[in-house]
Structures are given as C-alpha cells and as structure tokens.
C-alpha cells in the first residue's frame, strides 16, 4: 500500500430509518421495510447482498409484507394493499383493504389467499390471482382491531390476536370457534396480543403487552404454559419450520428462544422451555423472521441482525442500516462531495491542509474548513433513487421514481446560482443508477427497465444520444445493480441482477460484449484508467479483470483465479461496495466494504494459503525482514464501524473516506426501555 493523505469525512449525517417489518421469501431473500415506507430486499445466499431498494413514499406505510412466490405485497396504515413491480421497483397497483388501516397480513400455506386484519376488527380474505389481488370475503366482525393473525397449516383455521382476546376462526364459515380471553394486569388497561402463531398440533403461541409468552391449547383454549421472560411488550415472534423452536422479542429487546423439549419417555408431554437469550438489539424489536438458517430481527435500532439457528455460539451477523449502494459521490478534480440523503442532496467542498505529513497516522491541522455549497431538497419530498456529480463538480443529477433531474452549477467565482436544466429529453426513463462520464460531457443512466441511456449534457438543451438495450437474447431485462463508464468515455458496463454484465461501446453505439456469467451478482465494478479492462467484484467476494476489447480475462485475473483467493478474503462477511483503480498507479486496486478497505497491488505476489492478513499497525511492529516476507498483494485496513465511501481524488495521493459511525446514529434514537442492571 502506498502513502495517502486521508480525508476522514464525518459530516455526512445520514439517518437510516427504523425497521417495521421483515418478510422472507422461499428463494432465501428477505424484504425489510423501514419507517419511511421503503423496502430493501436482501439476498441471503449472496452474502446478504442488498439487491433492491424500493423507495417509499410519504403517504405510504408498510406494516406487513407478504411474499407470494416472487411477488411482494405490502399493507399498512394507509389502508391499501400494494403489489410491487420487482423490475421497476415501484408499486404496481393498490387494492383497498375495505377496513381501514391494516395491522397484519398473512398468506395461507398454499399461497392462494391472503388474510388481512384491519382496524375495524374484520378479517378479510383476498384471493391471489395471476394478475392481481381480488377481494374475496370478510369474517364476522369483532369489536377490537386485529393486530396479529396466523394461518394454520391446513388453511381451515385462522387465529387472530387483538386487545384482550385471541380468537380462533373457522375459515370456511368465517365465524369464530373459540375465544381465549387474556387477563389484564390492571383492570382499566387492556392487554394487547401483539403476535400470535398457531402450530400444526393446534398449539397457539401468543405474545402480549404484559411481556408474557404463552402456549395455549388451540382446541380447548386452555393455557399450557406461560413464560414471563420479557419485561415489556412482546411485539414479534417467529416459529421454526419443524415447529420445535419459537423466538420472541419486543420492547424489551431480548430475543428469547423457546424450545420444545420432549419428555424422557415417549408418552410424556412435551414442554416448552426457555432456551438462550440473545441481547443483540438496543431498542424495540419490531420484526422477527425465521429464514431457515437464520433468525432475522430488526427494529427501532435500525440494524438488521441475523442469528444463526444451528449450533449455539456461532457469531450472529449485523447488517448495517446503510444502503449498500452509493450514497456519496466525489467530484475528483473539484474536490467536492455529493451526499445523497433520503429526500435531499448536499454538496460540500472538501477541507484542505497545507501541512505536510511527517509521521504515519499523524493528524494534520485543517487550514481550510469544509464548506457546504448546496442543499437541495426534492420536490414534494420525493425520495431520491440515485444521484451523481461530475468530476469538475459543476453538474449534479439525481433521479426519483419518476424523473431524472439535472442541475448546473457554473464555476464562475462568486456566482452561486444553481440552474436546473429544464428541457430534458422526453424519452428519458426513470433511473436506478447514474454516472457522469469523466469529461462531464455525458450522463449515463441505468433505467428502471434495464436499459442504459446516454445523455449529452448541456446547460440549455441536453440530447439523448442513445438507449443501449441488452442483447436480444434477454427477454425480460432485470434490474441493473451496477453501472460504470470508462475514463475515456468509450465503454459503459452495466451489471444486472441476473448476474450478467453487458458492455456497450458509446462511440459505436452498440453492445460490445457480455461477460461470462458468474453465479453471484456484481456488487461493484470499474474500468481501468488506461486499458479497456473492467474490474468486476461479485457479492461472493470473487473478483475478475476482464479485457472488454479482446473479450477475455486479463492474465493477472487468470493467475488469481488459478491460485484461488485467500481464505481470509473469502470469509469476510461484508459485500464489496466500491472498487477503484489508483489514478496514477493503476496496478493498485482499492476495494471497500462497510467495515474495511483493501488495496490490492498487482505487482506483489499473492498471499500463500496459510499466510495472515496483518493490519498495518501489526505489520509496522514486525521485524523489517519478517515484514517484507509477510507482505503480499492484499493490504487490508480494518476497524471501520461504517465506512460509506472511499475513493481517490484526482492525483491519487489523497483518499476520501466517509464514515458514519453507527453510534452517532443510535445516539439520536429515543431512550431505551430502562432496565435495572446489577451494580447501577
């Protein structure tokens, strides 16, 4: 690794949002909804890669989500049930719930109908048809709102939880067959059953506002067991596939695992036993989902926690609440930073120093403070999907779910007028990704239909030069997950979620080639500054360097693949979010994820299988002879809490690191449930 001046930027005050619900899909994807109505879709198999983000809307809340096959439905307090288009990442259509705010939603085992519990106390069934959702019928109305519901495996019985009551319904007649009254602790204060589940053997599990997890006999309505493990409301619950494990969590942010323990003989009754308690959250846990391999939990503290189910003691995984896509863009020559918040953009001029570094790790005095140049709010508080800034820092573009907007910031001294470029071509489609070419002459947009558009940037009259469509063989192009343009503005590469990467030639306006398919989606890619080489990093931590002009992997990449990547590199949990070549010395490649960054030096030898990835501090402490011996191509810098962005400035001697320590985020949260701890 060479020597860099590092700008440690901490003034990006991005606030993630609380998690409201989680839904698990059969292909091992997880949809996570946040309090601003946005939905994130993670692929667990691809190393928790954040595949898609469906932007929310101010008028939309997501309280419950349901996957029917690959189709995602959500419902919320606004009273609509929405299905989303999974390519365009926008709502397809909405169906009224006919009962006001929706609190809970569940699909039956055959995935043919969705039951919706709503404010008016009615359970309504919706049939899932090929095209859309159609209202089927309503159950008998009850007084209290329905807060939780669960289908029995047979699809004939439904159990709902509401204030003071648990009801078991016959689906065929729509009438309740059993009503279980839950006791109140204080006579005037109702007990709310926040979550309920019915098992195959008609055992009903309920979690209520008293903090009790209870196991009922669903046929007779008798209480089997009651565990008072939580200090406050039990908000969420999930059951394992074989129905021997139940997890509960709530305001008291412990995730408690209950296990069904068979008696020591065949005949004796099985009991539910509290197993271990996981203390991974600091605030209310709103959602808890079992995905087979993991128990995924999320809540007010925004972090998604995946706890492995199998053997105890395996480390759980925290998925940071920041999007894995770019939120920060750097104007390399102008030394400006563009920060993308949910509904606004900020443009900053980087600070500067005149001091010359003497020692490594020395903190240099700032002679020129960073300046905020621009604070741009979107119209009607629309959420921003993507944004970009040109290298000279004069062009800023962003896209929301409907439009692309382009702004010009003339460079003349003293003039600080932002000009919106109004006459954008009518054919410009809503963008998922966008980037300026290196000379700021063009804007490359990845559209929500899987195409790539090239826009010639002009302050007065921008022209849509060409729309690059994926080759004809691809019938339904999938969402583009990454987009990059070469520095000589000749090549555009677009990576799709179906793991394909297409390279387009701008000058020839044609599809140049497609990279060989790798089973894992591309999480980051970049072009070599001088050569027509494309560096592609996949979510599975594999990376390739591909010569797009000759349609072959480069020799170095072949060499790396032949030797195989080091185990220590592959076992990292985070997905690489950015990759960049050193502008001055392109043998060095910078890879960054949310917790570390790594500089790969192509000239150095690759690490031997048994060798260690020492940190820089560790290396410095080693004996010089040993140090040289242990040095290899991978230079790793760990220890970041949440590294959102890392890139070179123009000359390559300076690095910009944008950090958002998770502590700074959680400090802004409301106080947690006060719990007595020993010694306080």
């Amino acid at each position, binding site marked *: 690794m060479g020597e860099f001046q590092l700008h440690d930027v901490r003034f990006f005050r991005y606030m993630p949002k609380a998690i409201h619900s989680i839904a698990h899909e059969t292909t091992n994807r997880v949809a996570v909804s946040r309090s601003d109505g946005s939905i994130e879709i993670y692929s667990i198999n691809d190393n928790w890669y954040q595949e898609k983000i469906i932007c929310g809307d101010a008028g939309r809340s997501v309280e419950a989500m349901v996957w029917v096959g690959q189709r995602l439905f959500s419902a919320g307090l606004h009273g609509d049930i929405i299905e989303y288009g999974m390519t365009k990442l926008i709502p397809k259509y909405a169906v009224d719930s006919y009962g006001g705010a929706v609190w809970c939603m569940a699909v039956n085992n055959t995935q043919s109908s969705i039951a919706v519990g709503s404010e008016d106390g009615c359970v309504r069934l919706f049939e899932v048809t090929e095209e859309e959702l159609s209202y089927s019928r309503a159950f008998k109305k009850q007084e209290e709102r329905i807060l939780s519901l669960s289908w029995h495996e047979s699809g004939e019985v439904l159990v709902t939880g509401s204030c003071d009551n648990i009801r078991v319904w016959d689906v065929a007649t729509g009438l309740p067959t059993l009503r279980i009254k839950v006791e109140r602790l204080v006579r005037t204060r109702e007990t709310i059953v926040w979550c309920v589940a019915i098992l195959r053997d008609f055992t009903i599990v309920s979690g209520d506002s008293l903090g009790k997890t209870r196991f009922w006999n669903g046929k007779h309505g008798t209480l089997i067991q009651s565990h008072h*493990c939580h200090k406050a409301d039990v908000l969420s619950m999930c059951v394992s596939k074989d129905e021997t494990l139940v997890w509960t969590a709530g305001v008291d942010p412990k995730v408690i695992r209950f*296990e069904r323990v*068979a*008696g020591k003989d065949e005949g004796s009754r099985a*009991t539910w036993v509290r*197993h*271990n308690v996981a203390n991974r959250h600091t605030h209310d846990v709103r959602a808890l989902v079992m995905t087979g391999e993991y128990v995924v939990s999320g809540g007010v503290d925004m972090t998604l926690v995946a706890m492995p189910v199998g053997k105890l003691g395996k480390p759980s995984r925290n998925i940071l609440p920041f999007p894995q896509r770019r939120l920060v863009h750097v104007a390399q020559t102008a030394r400006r930073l563009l920060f993308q918040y949910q509904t606004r953009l900020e443009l900053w001029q980087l600070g500067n120093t005149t001091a010359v570094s003497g020692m490594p790790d020395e903190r240099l005095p700032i002679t020129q403070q960073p300046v905020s140049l621009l604070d741009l709010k979107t119209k009607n508080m629309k959420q921003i999907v993507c944004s970009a800034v040109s290298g000279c820092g004069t062009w800023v573009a962003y896209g929301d779910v409907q439009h692309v907007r382009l702004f010009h910031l003339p460079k003349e001294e003293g003039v600080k007028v932002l000009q919106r470029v109004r006459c954008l071509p009518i054919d410009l489609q809503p963008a998922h990704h966008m980037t300026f070419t290196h000379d700021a002459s063009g804007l490359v947009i990845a559209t929500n239909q899987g195409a790539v558009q090239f826009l010639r940037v002009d302050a007065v009259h921008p022209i849509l030069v060409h729309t690059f469509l994926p080759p004809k063989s691809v019938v339904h192009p999938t969402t583009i997950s990454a987009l990059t343009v070469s520095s000589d503005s000749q090549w555009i590469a677009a990576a799709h979620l179906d793991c394909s990467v297409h390279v387009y030639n701008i000058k020839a306006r044609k599809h140049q080639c497609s990279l060989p398919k790798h089973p894992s989606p591309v999480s980051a890619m970049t072009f070599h500054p001088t050569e027509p080489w494309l560096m592609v990093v996949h979510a599975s931590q594999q990376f390739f360097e591909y010569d797009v002009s000759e349609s072959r992997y480069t020799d170095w990449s072949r060499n790396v693949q032949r030797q195989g990547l080091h185990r220590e590199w592959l076992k990292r949990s985070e997905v690489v979010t950015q990759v960049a070549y050193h502008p001055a010395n392109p043998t060095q490649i910078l890879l960054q994820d949310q917790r570390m960054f790594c500089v790969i030096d192509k000239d150095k030898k690759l690490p031997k299988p048994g060798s260690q990835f020492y940190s820089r501090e560790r290396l410095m402490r080693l004996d010089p002879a040993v140090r040289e011996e242990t040095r290899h191509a991978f230079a790793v810098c760990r220890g970041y809490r949440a590294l959102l962005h890392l890139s070179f400035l123009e000359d390559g001697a300076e690095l910009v690191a944008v950090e958002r320590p998770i502590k700074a985020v959680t400090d802004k949260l409301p106080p947690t449930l006060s719990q007595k701890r020993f010694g306080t």
Partner: protein
Amino acid sequence: MAAASDEEMAIVQKAGANLVSERPVFSPDSRYVLCCCGYVVKVFSMSSGECVRELTGHKDFITGVKINPHNQFQAFTSSLDKTIKVWDYPDGKLLKTFSVGYPVHALYLLKEEEDAGYAVIRGKDNVFNLVKFSWTNRKGHTIKVETKEILRRVSRHEKHLAFGPEGSFIASVTRNKLTVLFTKSGKMKEFERPKNEFQCVTCHPTDACIATGMQDGKIFLWRGLFQKREVVRTIYHWHTLPVGDLTFSPEGTYLMSVGQECVLVLWQYNTEKKDFLPRMGSPLCYISSSPDGSLLAVSQVENVVQIVTRSNKVVQVFQGLTRVHIPQLIRSTNPVPTGLQIDPRSHTLVLNGRPGHLQWYNLHTDRHLYNLDIVWQNFVSSRRPWEAPEVIYTEIERTAFDQKGDWLATLERRADGMMAEEIKLKLWSFNKEKQSFELNTTVDCPHQGKVNALVFQPHSGANLPPTAVSAGDDGKFKTWTLIDDTDIYRENVCWTCDSVGTYRDLAAKDATFSEDGSLLAVAFGQSLTIWDPYTLDLKTTFCHTFCAEKDSIRQARFGLGSSCHYLITTTSSNLSVWNILSCSLLWTVSFECAVLVADPLSEYMAVFSSTSDLTVFKPSSPEPVYAHNKVVQSSVVAAIFFPKQDQQAEEQTDEAPWQKRSELYFMTYDQDLLTLQKDTPQQTRKDLTEMEVLESNLPPTPFSMYLSQVRPGRQEDDSPALVQHGTPGSVAIQQMLQTPAHVLPPVSTLCQSFLQMLLISKSSAERQDDEDMESESDEEEKNDQSETSDSEMEEDDHASTVKQSTSQSEKDNSSHDQTSNQSDSGKIHLKETDDLSSVKSSDLSWMKSIF
C-alpha cells in the same frame, strides 16, 4: 508425673464440631435433621432444636449421611475410614457395617435399587470414582461389599454428582465439564464450559432436567438430554458470587439456590419468577429440602443450620461453634485473633464468631449461647474475585474480661491498606437486669498501630477501681481506669487513660499482670520490664541477652498458684522462666513457641510449638509433665485451660494430673476445637441421651393408635425376661467401694438402703418391671451426675414417660434425703444407690397412672 507423660492421649473433639461440612438430611417425617459432625452424626430434633442422638462409631470423618429410602428408620453413613455403616438412627444403634476397602467420599442411595447404593471412593491412583456397591443376600453385621465402577474421575464432593429421576442418568461435574451418563444405554454426553467452573449439580425429581450452578453465579438448566438434537440450556442469573448449592423441591416446582450473598433464592420451575429470603446472616453453603417439601435446611458457613418453612420463616436453628469465615482472617495465620477466653461470670468460652461479633459458647453443653455485636457494622458479602478491592471487615483483635466478669474490653481494628487504620477500644459493662454487656466507653485510636496486649488487672479483694492495660506497637503501654463521670443529668462511670509508659522506644509486644495484680510485666523487644501498676515505676528489667539479635519476646506470662513468682517468656526460639524473687533466669529451653497458656486453677502451663507439638510443664522445672508430638496436622492458633464443670468429681476420674481441674482445649488453624483425652470411652454428655425414647416416627393411623392403647399391657406381659447378672446390688457395692472413704457418710445411713436393695432382688413378681425402670432411672442418675442443677434438667426435652419418672424419683429422693440427713456435698454416688433402692421400694401406682 513422668509416667503420665508416657501415656499417649487421644485428640478428641468434644464440642464445637463443624455441622456444615456436608449437606444436612431430613428424616422422612421431617422430625429430625441429621448432620455430619466430624466423626459422628448428630440427630437434631426439629421440635426442640436439641441434639437427641449421636451416631458414634466411625473412626474417621463422616462424609455423608443418607436415609434408607426403603426403611425410613435407617440411615447410611459413609466415612473416610473405608466403611459405610447402617444405623437405626431413632435408637442410635449400629446395625451393619459395609467394608468398602477405600475411603468413601460421598454416598448416594436410590429408591429404585433396594439393596445397592452408589459411593464415590478414592481409588488406588488417587482418582475419585463412582462405584456401585451391593449387599444382596449378605447376612451378618460386618459385610465386605463388592464395588463395581460406574464412572471414573468424578469429584469427591457430594454436591458435584446427582442422579436423575428413577436413576435414569447420572450427572457429574468436574471443574469445567458436565458429564451425563445414561444408565440404561451406558452412553455418555459431555458438555464443557471452558471459561467457567461448575460448582454444584442437581437433578429434577421427575423431569429429565439437570441444574448446575456456575462459578460466575449463573444457574444452567440442561434439558432435552434424551433428544438427538442439541441439549437445551437455559440460563438463570441472579447470583453474583459462585452458586453454593442447588436443590429442587421434592415435587419439582421450585429450584432453590444459595450462595455467598446470604440470600436463599427460590426459582419457580419453568417460569421466570423468583423469590428471595434475604439477610440470612452469613454466606450459605448447603441447602436441602425435607421429603415433603415443607421445610428447607440451609447450612451457613458460620456453622449454623437454619430450618426454613416454605413461607420463608425460620423455624429452627441448629447452631454450633461459629466459625470465622471472612477471607481476610482465613488467609491470615490466625483466624481467631482474640484467642480463647473464659467469661468468668457464665464460665463459657468467648471467642471471635461472626464478623464483628464475639460469641459465647458453652463447652459443657456444646451449645452456642449468644453473639455480641461489637463493631456495629452490617455484614457486606464479599465481592467477586476479579472485582477489586476486596471487602475489608473490621475485626475484633483483642478481648479481655476482668476478674469478676463485670467488664469486657474489646479492641477492633480495620486496616485496608489505603486509609488510616481504624482502631477502637471499647469497654463494656455487664448489665445485670438485661444479663448482657452494654457499651460503656469507646476510645478511638488508643494506640498508633497494632495493639498487642489487652489485660485487666486482677484485684485480690482490694477496693480499687478496675484497671486495664493495653500495649501496642507504638511503644506505649497505657493503663485505663474507671472514673466517675456523673453529672447533673445522670450517674455514670467511664474509662479513661490513666497513665502511659514507654521503654526505650521499643514496641510493646505483650503485657501481663501477676496473679495478685501487684506487678505488671511488659515485654519490649528483648527486654522484659516489671512495673508497679499503681505508680508505674519501673521495678526491674530482664534482658534476653542469650537470644539472637532480632529475637524479641512474643509472650510473657506469670505463673499461677504455687509458682506465682515465676515469669515465663517466649521468643521465637526460646522459652525462658524467670524468678521474680531472685530476679534471675531460672531455666531456658530452645523451643519454638506459638501458643502459651496457663491453667488458672493449677500451676501447670501448656505450650504449643509452631509445629503443633504440645508440652505441658510446671514453671518450676524444665522437665515436661506431658508431651505430645504433632497433635494436629495444621497449626494450633489458640488454646485455653477450661475449668471442668464438676470440680468435685475430679478425684474420681482417671485423668492425667494436669487435666484434673481443667481441660486443655485448643483451636487449630482449621477452626476445630479439640481437646486431649485418655483413651477411655467417652463418658460425658454423649451417653446420657442414649436411652431417651424418641417419639415414634409412624404416622398416626387408626391402627397404630389402637396399638398404642393396647401396647402398655402387652409390654408388661411380654417384655423380654431380664436376667439378673452378678450379685444383687453389685452396682451399689462397686460404687461404694470406689468412693473414697473420707467422703462416705456414716455406715448407719447407708445400711438401710443397701439392705433394701439386696432384699428386693428376691421378690420375683414385680421384678421385671423394676428392671425396666431401673435402666431408665440409671440414666437419670447419670444425668444428675453431670448436670449441675435440677432445673436445667427440667428444661431438657425428655419423652413424657421419662419425665414422669424423673419427677417421681426426685420426690422419692427428697423424702429419702430428709430421713437420712445426708450432707449435700459429694454424695452423688450414694444418692444413686438411694435412688435405685427407692425406685424399687416404691409402689407402682404412678406407673399405672402413666399408662
């Protein structure tokens, strides 16, 4: 005298044994509690709190007692003497002895196996193994049993092993590992906790559930042992200190845990509810539940067993000699810094007890009397080992009683190494109304630094104010006297410092008064200075010039009685005797002396070396009267000559001359209070309870009630014919001959009863009943012999029949006394013969009234 020293005397533990070395055990009807107590098992009555039986017979420490699950009147005991014995504990009879061949460290009996048990033995290679022993179809009193190894390498503590319901599995914990052996399949499962240590284990009575207590205070519940999947481990964490012991209630609804927090925690099984019984007084080490679950026995490390009901009420306390348990004292060389003292008023032993308390202990009745709180500070349980700093307790370092027991001086000190030392001298006066000591004067910081001696001046009848002397490391000795502190509001007296003496700036290591209080000897370095206590004139100085340079005097004592003109000093290498009259060194021997004590009633003195060798000597001669090498393995930290209770009986007993008036008690480092005794069968308190009739343990069924009505008649008919041994009245003759002639009453007074005795043996019809009664009244006589007052005996909780007979015989006694005009003193043996005869001569009408 030399002959006496040849006879080896046995070291016995007469009183103050450790009740809490093992788990206490309830009898099936919860009327008795059995506690292992050194070499014996004590059976305590739940209703009275008295020790009603002692099961004696083992020759080494008893390691466990268990009730036979198939016969509720039998108890099994295991011992390090390689045997397991079966007792009829209500009667205190030894039934069987199983010879195991190895020291037995723990014993387990299962309900499912009628003639087999489990024991933890120390095998050949010093490995503790769990073995099964069986006594099927083996007849005889002493049986050699075969052992079959079940589990190797277990822990020797009883609480480290537990049996599952119906013996389906065995759970054993060693340091970091829990091993579960399934008895049916023979399979084993092991669970390791590398960073934690297992402290105790217990099994649920019906569920397949193991509870283990951990060192970091967690309780693990292991369930799902029989399933293929991973075992379910639930953590319950309340304790901060290591969990001491765990037990389930018999029905399995509660789990009880104890620890050093002095809190009994009751966990409701399978729910998160818990209940506490706080402020138990001292750290808890064992807990056991009665078979019906209504009572809990909680052992405290300070040698107390408390019986607690399920409504968290303490209903009974069995208290032994309180053991010092605070870590700072246990770690020091002397856990009992005050030494052993006698309260002159009550003739009881006074020593350190609970933290900051003094305890009064009656050695003769083996009864703890009371604790006196000296420092008035709450007991704070210790911190976790890794949490510095450690809790430092204020401890009483010196105590002294004045001659009559009216005043008590205590000296407490707290030194945590950070702050200045807190030293307080407190003087307590005895309040006759309240029958306890009351604080009179507190002196803050009487000396700078450690106080080495605190003594009262003995006054021989002179009408002088009481005076005490303290000597400390600051080189001063101070005399404290009582002065009048009366003002217009109240009449009062208080103590004040009268004078201060120093000698060459040397640290004062010891101070002592001569027997009459006329001389005060203070040890300064190598010099022993003699002062006039009234004027504080330095009379003379004895210098230990023959000793090495740094060899300063440790202890100084005046001789007593006929050798009161001798002054004995000890240094770390020498024992020297000085004659005060001639002001010369009488003799000196090279002896590494640790403890030096004088008999207040004779001139003998005893000295313990640092290697626990005992030497008894007279100050007048360097020749030892008695020597006993290596009395105990550990060191002796304190000793006392304790006056015998019955000074009159001294002539009769066959004791060494130096033990005639007082018994030498000494305390070891392990806080065992031991004494020396000739190898005669133990002949004191222990036998007298032997024949007490224990209440029947049978539940009152209608049949048994009917039986109890019928039984008296049957007894009269069927009681086994007693055979008359020897000549009639031989007992009386023997005793008459043993009694020294000069204390015998005139022959004329003896004649009538003696003759009557002979006559009665010939009447045949009522003979058998008489014999019956005789044996009982025999016991009563022995009672009389040992108990000083009749009133005390009345308090004893005897069975109703015995009581009746007692009162009756007393009545007879008194009537007899009137006729025979005996003098009161020294007639006990005569009285016995009288009792015998009177019982026999009396009609049986009173017996009929009982039945």
